[in-house]
């Protein structure tokens, strides 16, 4: 009897997963269609633009490498957001944390005198620590004072951005360089390239490792269990003895630290100086990645690689046609709305549920 129930549940789980895959694919197709329509209306030669957009990433080794490179920041921020959403927290500080990580990764790698292997590790861990420390503020404001973490984390992003810009312009500037940037990261501070020809850095491996680690942490540790329970039902979590407030604080700090680590790893892997003058939007991207990955860290790299493919294509399209690469934001937005939409294709789900009910003989 129990075995039969288990088998039924497994079948139902599979059906559910199949339904979610179908929904995601439909969302991707629709989002791409919207993008193609926009290209069709705005471009002088839409056919060529669309062909470059979809084909270019596979046409050269460098472009193919770009798929992976573009996915790296998305994996980091996606994993960070996954953890926080699982705890029920809509915190967008990953944006600022990633920025902090990039700046301080570059500064520490260029400023500290340490041996080759140790330097990049220190230059990744210290920014992660710093980002976590700053992330403690909006986290504590939420858990202790019940201040909406969404609004406060956004405010922190702006504050952090301007403070970082101040530090860059007044303290970390390389006076000998032609434009505003930090000093060059020495070879000892860089993360090595996995493939020199297309400049795919080993930060990709760190990102993948982190995604697996986050999955294990969420699903197979007590802390992870506490996070999931807090997100699903805070009252119940409190009832079974989980310190909900502590979990809320810890998870957001952890998310900020992961984003900080990601920023540093991305910087050390793919850049020689820090020279950003605007927030790179990776935090919001991470949010979108997390939702499409159904808040499952293991699926994050998959979604991020797909987005990386779109970005690599869009970058080429912007170079060789008259369409800007901001089209990807439109694609991301449509995907987020559709995947997040409970009613999107829900008739399919209803049908499959009815079918399951019939098969179950009930």
């Amino acid at each position, binding site marked *: 009897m129990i075995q039969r129930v288990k088998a039924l549940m497994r079948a139902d789980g599979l059906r559910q997963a199949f339904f979610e895959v179908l929904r995601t694919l439909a969302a991707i197709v629709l989002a791409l269609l919207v993008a193609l329509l926009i290209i069709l209306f705005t471009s002088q030669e839409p056919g060529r633009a669309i062909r470059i957009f979809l084909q270019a990433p596979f046409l050269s080794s460098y472009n193919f490498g770009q798929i992976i490179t573009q996915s790296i920041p998305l994996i980091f921020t996606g994993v960070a957001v996954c953890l926080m959403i699982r705890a029920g927290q809509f915190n967008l500080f990953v944006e600022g944390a990633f920025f902090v990580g990039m700046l301080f990764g570059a500064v520490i790698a260029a400023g500290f005198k340490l041996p080759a292997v140790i330097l990049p590790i220190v230059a990744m861990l210290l920014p992660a620590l710093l980002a976590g420390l700053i992330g403690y503020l909006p986290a504590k404001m939420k858990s202790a004072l019940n201040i909406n973490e969404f609004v406060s984390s956004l405010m922190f992003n702006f*504050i952090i951005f301007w*403070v970082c810009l101040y530090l860059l312009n007044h303290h970390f500037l390389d006076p000998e360089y032609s434009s505003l940037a930090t000093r060059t990261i020495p070879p000892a501070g860089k993360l090595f390239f996995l493939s020199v020809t297309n400049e795919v850095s080993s930060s990709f491996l760190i990102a993948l490792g982190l995604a697996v680690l986050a999955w294990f942490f969420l699903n197979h540790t007590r802390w992870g269990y506490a996070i999931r329970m807090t997100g699903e039902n805070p009252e119940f979590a409190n009832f079974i003895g989980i310190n909900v407030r502590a979990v809320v604080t810890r998870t957001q700090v952890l998310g900020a630290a992961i984003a900080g680590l990601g920023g540093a790893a991305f910087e050390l892997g793919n850049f020689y100086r820090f020279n950003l003058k*605007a927030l790179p939007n990776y935090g919001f991207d991470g949010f*979108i990645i997390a939702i499409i990955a159904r808040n499952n860290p293991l699926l994050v790299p998959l979604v991020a690689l797909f987005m990386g493919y779109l970005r690599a294509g869009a970058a080429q399209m912007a170079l060789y046609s008259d369409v800007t690469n901001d089209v990807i*934001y439109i694609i991301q*937005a449509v995907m*987020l709305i559709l995947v997040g*939409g409970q009613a999107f294709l829900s008739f399919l789900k209803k049908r499959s549920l009815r079918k399951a009910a019939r098969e179950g003989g009930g």
Partner: protein
Amino acid sequence: MIDFIFSETFLVSSLAYAMPIIFAGLAAYISKKAGLLNINIEGSMSMAALAGALVSYFSQSWVLGVVSAVITGMLMSLVLSACVMWLKTDSVLSGIALNTLASGLAVVILFAVLGVQGDTSSSPSLMIPVLNIPGLSAIPIIGRFLFQENVLVYVMISLAVLLWLVVERTRLGAHIKAVGYNAQAARSVGIRVERTRLVALLICGVFSGLGGAYLSMVYLSYFSVGMVAGRGFIGIAAEAMGAGNLLSTLFFAWLFGAVDYFATGAQSVLNVPYELLNTLPYLMTVIALVIYSLKPGLKKRSRKQRDPKPVSKEG
């Protein structure tokens, strides 16, 4: 410094800096009354600013610019309503998505229409004029403040009064508040929840649109990507501190604007790097949120308002 704060210039200019935040605050106020945390105010303002700049440049009419900005704001609200009510996407998620959409679409439209990237400063928008009432505007200190303001300031004041009347004195307002307080209960007494929310969101869109128009047609003479710079979110914060009260929402929005003006004005006076001064409006918002949450009396009241939220979410 004290002289500076109580000067006529400060009074006039702080309002000028606060106007976009005030419009955002009014937009947040009405959507919150209907039980929705509308994060998309930021993106709506950006799209509306773009529409205002482009239409006023091409038509050479500021009225058409404002009208198209308002229509754009309402369109964004319509899209948000479709996401939330039709697709049943979470309102915060939809807001994030639409903000992303707005930032992408703005660049694409800018590039498609004008062939430029970043801003429209090469084709400046037509500015909304200042309404000067001769004689009265010569009164010291409050003269310029009350009788020599931009048209949109008078529009804002009359619409704010109208909004208050609608929310507090009409059937529609009662319905909006009922829906925001408890959507299921409202439905059970025959209020059309979806339609009421749609109306509230459309009103919200009008205010976002006006905020956008103000940015690209008064505050600056062009649209630039990222020009909203969190003002929509600060407006939401102002509403949160106003806790459902229109006057306090307006007050906090003005306060944030004043800080913004102070940060800009102090750059030439104080010997503090402009980057650090630029953090002030955001820092002030965070500090205000903390102070507000520490006040025990206010907190109790707002918790009472928060309680029915999970119920209203389903509606």
